[in-house]
């Protein structure tokens, strides 16, 4: 069997110190295959968000190993993690998190700007990404002029514009009605199938998790069950 894209071995995370310390993760083992579509579920405080932060290289584990593409990345410094995010990861948030007063196109171009791409490469790649999410006609609009569903699609375009290995989505449909939610889930499924991008998604809703191929349940800082479904 091929090496998984991501492998967590005995990952723990402790916040605070002394009596006030809180053990958020108590030894998480998790393998994520390249091309998987994984839904992460669990009640509040179960450790799913902490795990996602570590997987997104926004946070580091207190102990344990985090292998990305076979490399240990658990002890990378702040800037190196930033470079890893820049190069391999894309983020979609519940609250969209687009820059205000900034057009859809400029929002999507932003990650390319930090990668130092020139103007024309940026424009072309950003337009291609917007086209993929079906918003090529809305490139010149600012977030305030877009609906919630459209804003989330812009955010997805921003996440995939760099062709990342992994797309991390933190409750991407949390702020949307069910019709928009289905559209977003179909878009993510489509991206996962056609581009082969690995999707990691935190969700509360079983309806949304149903789109995933693997569903991981967290409870009390540990992986409770891993449910693999037929594609």
């Amino acid at each position, binding site marked *: 069997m091929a090496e998984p894209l991501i492998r967590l071995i005995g990952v723990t995370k402790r916040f605070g110190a002394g009596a006030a310390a809180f053990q958020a993760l108590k030894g998480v083992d998790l393998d994520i295959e390249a091309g998987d579509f994984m839904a992460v579920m669990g009640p509040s405080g179960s450790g799913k968000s902490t795990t996602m932060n570590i997987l997104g290289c926004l946070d580091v584990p207190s102990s344990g190993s985090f292998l990305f593409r076979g490399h240990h*990345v658990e002890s990378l410094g702040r800037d190196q993690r930033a470079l890893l995010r820049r*190069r391999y990861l894309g*983020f979609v948030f519940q609250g969209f998190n687009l820059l205000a007063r900034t057009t859809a196109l400029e929002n999507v171009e932003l990650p390319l700007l930090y990668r130092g791409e020139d103007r024309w490469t940026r424009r072309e790649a950003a337009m291609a990404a917007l086209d993929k999410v079906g918003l090529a006609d809305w490139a010149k609009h600012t977030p305030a002029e877009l609906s919630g569903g459209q804003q989330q699609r812009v955010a997805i375009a921003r996440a995939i514009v760099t062709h990342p290995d992994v797309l991390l989505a933190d409750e991407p449909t949390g702020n949307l009605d069910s019709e928009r939610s289905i559209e977003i889930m179909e878009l993510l499924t489509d991206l996962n199938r056609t581009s082969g991008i690995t999707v990691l998604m935190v969700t509360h809703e079983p309806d949304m998790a149903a789109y995933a191929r693997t569903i991981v349940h967290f409870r009390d800082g540990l992986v409770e069950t891993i449910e693999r479904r037929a594609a």
Partner: protein
Amino acid sequence: MTDLDLDLAPPPPRQASSMRLLGTTALLALRAIRRHILRSFLTVLGIVIGVFAVVTMVTLGKGATQSVHDQISSLGANILTVIPGQGNGRGGGGQAPPPFKYGDLAAIRDQVTGVTSVAPQAQASAAAVHNAANWSTTVNGTTNAYFDAQNWKLTDGRRFSDSEEEAGKSVCLLGSTVKANLYPHEQPVGTRLRLGSVDCEVIGVLDAKGQGGFGQDQDDTVVMPIKAVQRRFTGNQDIRAIIVSADPAYDSGDVQEAIAALLRERRNITGGKLDDFMIFDNKQIADTLSGITGVLTAIVSAVAGISLLVGGIGIMNIMLVSVTERTREIGIRLAIGAVAREVMLQFLVEAVVLSCLGGLIGLMLALFASIGLSKVIDVPFVFDPWTNLMAFFFSGLIGVVFGYFPARRAASLNPIDALRHE
């Protein structure tokens, strides 16, 4: 581990190219400024006012200093003015010091070395009337030596003839202010003019000299032979002042000392008695006055400089608020892969661009204001590139200094917390 880092890092040249990083952050900074135009304007207002105040004050101060210099040198260089009276005014108790006599004049001319010419002066006030026009002015009685000593040119006509000077004839030369008021459309030379009750012929017109060292209008005068003034106006033989022109080859201090010694002897001032006359050196007056203007300029500029400092603190204030307000934005940038240095540079560049922009606007306003104000207060406009360059450089420096702290704070934010920030 080294293998891994190379694998993960983007191609090194791009990362290493600080020019590219600067270009990127400059673009981001300009976008941020453009998107918050009102906030940007309020941020730079302090710098605008500070630079404006400093540059305007320094420019006007330099103009004033130059104006004082010009005025004093218009009085003529190496001119000593001798008048009766005490430097340390002894109240009203004592007798008025005696005026000078013609003999004093001749003695100075003949006995003091380094003296090129000596002119007496007697003064009276009179109303000058020509046709329907009426102008109250000062009548100066003197000799032709006066024009040489003052280096005063004529625009029309001639000086006194020897016989006019000797006989004290009623002839006069007009200062340009008097000419402008009495002869708005006519050439005065050859016409007649009534000065008080005296009828006199205009033989010449003097060139404009402008303000004197103490702000008086030197051109508001009518010059007549001294004997005419003494006979017709003052009614005595008194000489109110002696104007001595010194040879530039001699030290004016030595000449001054020699004149003082001579006059003490002629006026019987011996032992510890105080001089009952004063000698003014134009050069000394010029130095004193430009010294005063220079000090005033420095003080006012320092006060204006404080407003520049306050402007810098204003920038820091708003940048700090801006960092808090844009915490989420910073979180987004960090999440999508900005390194701390890039976030820091963006905020720093924003601060520097803002303060430089404020500096430029301030310089522009100062240029207009100093041109306008220099006309109003009647000093020459002196554009000093150094003042402007320094002010601009300083405003950029303020951006760096006061932008650094907020920028560092922005860069040190934790992306998870920043993204959660409401």
